[in-house]
């Protein structure tokens, strides 16, 4: 009754000549032929494939001996997010110094399964070192342990699960997320003093932002200040975040401070502050990360601060740490590295606005940057 069977049986009724068959089936080989070409397109001159790890010795700078061209795999949760552009510049700059290569892979949309698959592939592909953004408290533990047992150094960067001791990484290179939240909380107490305050978070539970809001809440509570706070979820996309924040303000006009713990919500807070002219009314605001709009609105006086977690260093240092681990046979290398907590305010924002750089990801040009006057 199905078409499928009817079709197949009809075909049996007629055979094709040999020439016809060869001509028609030749196409089938084309895919296999096309694949190597496609793959070749991807290889920039200066970076090899994962498999090419031990192909040629390259000289690292300085007095280091010739080393194989180590290949370090970075597993990321949002591979195409602009936040990580400086991280990738950091990786490239470090590997230019050390003669290593890298692969930037993982998931575009924080799909943990996809990330675990990439991690497993890196292990079976014989990566020389693996850096993982540990955005799930459990999922990465087994494969990370497997890699370490197999002699592959594994570090975490940008996100570290539930923190020190909860996953098997050798070291974490990134912001002390909870600590930065505490600093933010202290700043909120200092700026606002007392009254209702709102904290915005894009996606609660995501382990690269949740600890910040926890830290801020902790600091506000510990201060004993008379601040009532609310935590509001804004969502993962910029337009959605902005409209959530605006509608929150429209419903809560007595708010004394609006703060956010992720890049998108921070920009949303800044734009809402500008739209309603809230800075002039004494409302305080602040957040995280360096989206261009956020920086401009800080410069224009609409927002009090944003926190720079130095994403460039989150690529640069892992490469060095994994290289030293390989070079020293595990005797040196992985060390906890706090990539910092830099408050960007009206006083120092000029340096960010005047200079497009690899460190902020808005320029790929290699140059020496003069401090802003």
């Amino acid at each position, binding site marked *: *009754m*199905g*078409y*499928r069977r009817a*079709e*197949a049986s*009809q*075909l*049996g009724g*007629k*055979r*094709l*000549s*040999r*020439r016809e*068959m060869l001509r*028609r*089936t030749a*196409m*089938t080989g084309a*895919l*296999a032929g*096309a694949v190597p070409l*496609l*793959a070749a*397109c*991807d290889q920039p001159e200066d*970076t*090899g494939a*994962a*498999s*090419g790890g031990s192909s040629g010795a390259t000289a690292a700078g300085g007095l280091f001996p010739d080393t194989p061209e180590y*290949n370090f795999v970075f597993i*990321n949760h949002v*591979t*195409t997010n602009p936040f990580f552009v400086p991280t990738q510049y950091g990786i490239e700059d470090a590997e230019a110094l050390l003669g290593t290569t*890298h*692969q*930037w*892979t993982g998931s575009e*949309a924080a*799909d*943990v*399964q996809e990330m*675990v*698959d*990439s991690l497993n*592939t*890196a292990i*079976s*592909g014989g990566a020389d070192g693996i850096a993982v953004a540990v955005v*799930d408290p*459990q*999922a990465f*533990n087994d494969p990370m342990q497997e890699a370490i047992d197999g002699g592959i150094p594994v570090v975490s960067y940008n996100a570290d699960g539930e923190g020190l001791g909860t996953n098997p990484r050798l070291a974490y290179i990134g912001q002390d997320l909870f600590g930065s939240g505490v600093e933010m909380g202290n700043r909120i107490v200092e700026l606002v003093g007392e009254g209702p305050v709102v904290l915005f978070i894009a*996606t*609660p*539970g*995501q382990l690269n932002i949740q600890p910040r809001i926890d830290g801020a809440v902790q600091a506000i509570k510990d201060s004993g200040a008379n601040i009532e706070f609310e935590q509001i*979820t804004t969502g993962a996309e910029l337009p959605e975040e902005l409209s959530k924040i605006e509608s929150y303000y429209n419903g809560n006009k007595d708010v004394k401070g609006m703060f956010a713990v992720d890049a998108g919500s921070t920009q949303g807070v800044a734009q809402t502050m500008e739209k309603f002219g809230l800075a002039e009314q004494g409302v305080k605001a602040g957040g995280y990360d360096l989206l261009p709009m956020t920086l401009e609105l800080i410069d224009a006086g609409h927002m009090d601060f944003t926190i720079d977690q130095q994403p460039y260093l989150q690529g640069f240092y892992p490469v060095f740490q994994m290289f030293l681990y390989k070079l020293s046979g595990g005797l040196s290398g992985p060390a906890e590295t706090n990539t910092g907590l830099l408050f960007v305010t009206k006083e120092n924002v000029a340096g960010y606005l005047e200079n497009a750089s690899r460190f902020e990801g808005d320029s790929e040009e290699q140059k020496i940057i003069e401090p802003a006057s």
Partner: protein
Amino acid sequence: MAKPAVSGGVTSTDNVRQQPGIGAHLTEILLQRREASIFFVAVALAVYFQSSNSAFLSQGNVRTLSEFTAATAIISAGLVMLLICGEIDLSVGQTFGFAPIVMYIADQTLILPVAIVIGLVAAAIVGLVNGLVTVYLRVPSFIATLGMLFLLGGLNVTLTDGFPKPTPEDSFVTNALGAADWTGIGWCIVIIFLMHILLNYTPWGLHTFATGGNIVGASEAGVKVARIKIGNFMLCAMLGGFAGLLEAFRISSIDPLAGGPNTMFLAVAAAVIGGTALAGGVGTILGAFLGTAVISILTNGFTLQGVSAYTFNIILGIAILVAMSLNVYIGRLRRSGAT
């Protein structure tokens, strides 16, 4: 493959029929069996990746490859049943995330096997609702299941407070359901086999083809088309939920953002690459499995080669387009051979 079918100069089709050589035989299989062309593509890709990186067929990587394949192939098998009916379930990626979450909540008060059954029942209810809305309210399944996609996406985040949950302690049950190595692909093979039997050797399968091929005719011939469609919606959702459980146990985390549209689109792509028609009436379970294998080999192979994220989707996209064009081309040969 290159071996001449018959001695030179003989072009009569009758002669070919009398003395088929290996080449002609293979070609014949390639053209007759819907799955054969995609199988050939899968083998060619595997040969290519193995020749360019010897780690490709190492035990560790074959395990990874099987993990890539298992869940998507199971979902894809469910989607094939629906696609043959001329329907689609866009929410199956969210059901994939939903079942483990329901299981987690049930596991707080009940024993694990019961919790797992409740997770699967929840998935079946999702399928039932999709089916009822499509069949009786006559909302096109594209829209009905799109609504379900958002609904479940929101529920998944709400029920978990947006925070990933740990899977239950390792036990025989969790190990059997994905936590132990190779169990995922084991389940996948069993399910593909059973679904293949269901589709090709039972009245249910026959009626499924009939419903998608000619719904009026089928209905007049006494096929209960509403029941077939609703049943297949439930089957698809349960397979999606089961795949979600396997994956959750495998990575020992129940992620509120697991699955989603990406998982669903991969499964649809796998079904279509394997020779199932989006328009209904035509489809194969084995083809869906092979389609998934092709996508998995491409994904895993390119990752293994060190292709970085920016270029990855460009290459994967082109590869899927090329693979699909070839498949459609061979499909056309199949049809023209029949005229």
